[in-house]
């Protein structure tokens, strides 16, 4: 059985501010930033294991929507956004 869905659309989440040295799919510019779950996609095999040819368990993948101003401190036009796919183990629910 794969991992269960932890976050529903609309949930406010923050991206963990971690800095591992290897292959990860969470871009630095989003680490430490807060966004909203745009949709829960589905589980995929963990690319952080696949990248090294290792057995890979599944991790749930989400699309998270970030406000430009949250990421950069300002936006060309308020309300513009960046959506990115982030794996569950990089996300924390905001209380």
């Amino acid at each position: 059985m794969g991992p269960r869905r932890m976050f529903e659309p609309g949930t406010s989440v923050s991206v963990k501010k971690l800095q591992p040295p290897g292959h990860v799919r969470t871009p630095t510019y989003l680490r430490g930033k807060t966004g909203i779950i745009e949709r829960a996609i589905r589980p995929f095999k963990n690319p952080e294991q696949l990248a090294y040819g290792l057995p890979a368990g599944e991790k749930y993948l989400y699309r998270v929507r970030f406000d430009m101003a949250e990421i950069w401190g300002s936006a060309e036009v308020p309300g513009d956004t960046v959506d990115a796919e982030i794996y569950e183990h990089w996300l924390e629910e905001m209380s």
Partner: protein
Amino acid sequence: MSKSPSTDPARRWHDMGGDPAGEIPMDGHDFALWEKRVDALMILGSLKGHFTVDGLRRALEDMGEDAFETMTYYERWVAAVNQNLIEAGVYSLEELATKMAEIKSRGETYGAAQDV
């Protein structure tokens, strides 16, 4: 092209979203036969289960920023495919080295070096 301005050692070079950069170069080129063959070997190696795209990306990232700046796209990809095939044990470094030396002796150009 200039290198990433980041001085944070924990930020990897390929992770470039948001970096300042210049005007987008709009010039393009059509892919050469050897580049299309690299692309095909990448797809087929993956279909045969020897690596995933994640393994290729890992190899590309580990080549470092100099490779990104000095090698063409498919030069980096052929290196990544080779790295993953070596790691998967499809062939050995000895076999590769011997084969490459033999190919070089066939001729001076890509066309002449094909095994015909």
